[in-house]
């Protein structure tokens, strides 16, 4: 599987888009993570307007067999959540980097250990 070059990645298997002109980044989980989870059946996302902190849990992803915490890869304020994925969690599996995005954050702080696509690919394959 290929991880898009224009994104950055956390070791918790989230991806983060480059910030737009308003300083807002889009966040999702990687294809690697989606495959490891199996069919995602429920997503619980942070509330719009709430603050999230880098490295801390901000939601849940449920698959057939397990529940996984969703971590925020950066700190900031949640500006939007993907209602499509709430209604159809299978989008996380079918289009993890596109229609299966999870939420958007106006970034106020980010950790220093975010990975490039190549670094994440190497990390995920080990």
């Amino acid at each position, binding site marked *: 599987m290929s991880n898009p070059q224009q994104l950055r990645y956390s070791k918790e298997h989230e991806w983060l888009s480059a910030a737009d002109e308003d300083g807002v980044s889009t966040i999702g989980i990687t294809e690697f993570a989606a495959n490891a989870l*199996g*069919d995602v*059946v*429920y997503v619980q996302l942070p509330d719009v307007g709430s603050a999230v902190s880098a490295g801390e849990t901000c939601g*849940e992803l449920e698959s*057939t*067999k397990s*529940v996984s915490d969703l971590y925020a890869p950066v700190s900031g304020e949640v500006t939007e959540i993907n209602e499509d994925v709430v209604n159809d969690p299978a989008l996380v599996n079918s289009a993890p980097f596109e229609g299966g995005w999870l939420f958007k954050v106006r970034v106020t702080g980010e950790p220093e250990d975010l990975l490039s696509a190549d670094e994440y690919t190497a990390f995920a394959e080990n």
Partner: protein
Amino acid sequence: MTDAPPTPRRTALDARHRALGATMTDFAGWDMPLRYGSERDEHTAVRTRAGLFDLSHMGEISLIGPQAGQALDHALVGHLSALAVGRARYTMICDDEGGILDDLIVYRLGDEEFLVVANAANAQVVLDALTERAGGFTASVRDDRDAYALIAVQGPESAGILRTLTDADLDGLKYYAGLPGTVAGVPALIARTGYTGEDGFELFLAPGDAERVWEALTEAGAPVGLVPCGLSCRDTLRLEAGMPLYGHELSTDTTPFDAGLGRVVKFDKPGDFIGRQALEAASRRADSVTPRTLVGLVAEGRRVPRAGYAVLAADGSRIGQVTSGAPSPTLGKPIAMAYVDAEYAKPGTEGVSVDIRGSQEPYEVVALPFYRRER
């Protein structure tokens, strides 16, 4: 440093699973396919078309001899000596306290020959117990775990698929029956059993023949949409069908009566059997005291209950515990099996919820199974 885990065992079909790109998982010391693609698609294939399973991790034990039936009557809770040749029975092996050591399928292959199929995780316990319990009888217990691969084809199209590959009279083969025959030209015990709630067959065959039979079934099933299926969908299929799973609904802390399966205990069979006294007490207890009852729960929301989660009454008091839970592909909602206090076991009981990591999610109490195929 901790000791490295022992190398998991691999089935005769291991290379095939890897070639198919299966996600593998450790299951009771075996490296088994969890899913090949989407477990939901595999589940749906079994409900609507057909699915192919490798179940070679299951434990086979043969009992052979003039008193093999009597030995099983003594060792198990069922009346196996009364089983007709060619038929199969769901039964259990209990300890002296009536606790369930395992649930089993027993096939009678001949007047003096039975095949016992145990869960992978309990196969050694069952083998040891049967060996000890058969001691006073003219019967030998043979460990046949390495003698058989087990392939299951399950789903409404399974009879049609298998018919093209076998000389056996499938129309004459009833549910819970098994007979020797050939499949794709190799000898097999062909049994009309399964763990999915669908019509289907389980094929016991020599491990060296497993690849050939798997391939033949794959080819014969392709036109009707047969797909390989992993253990993940097997679990959601059996849960929808209301079938108990050892380690979840069944354990040594549970008697068959506690599990709502007291009917498998045959007190009127000849001779004594291990656990009789304790099971008679459990039976009386079930008649007099309101016991916990195994029920089905269907979610109103979308959050999935997991084994061990508390079941709560309207006032928040704990009335039971979830034993298995999963999103049901057929119902489109999360479902669970749970033991609850009998007063809350009636279908439609108001106010029941499951504590899902701190949040009380409403659930409807229903009778099991969640799904029953049309016949």
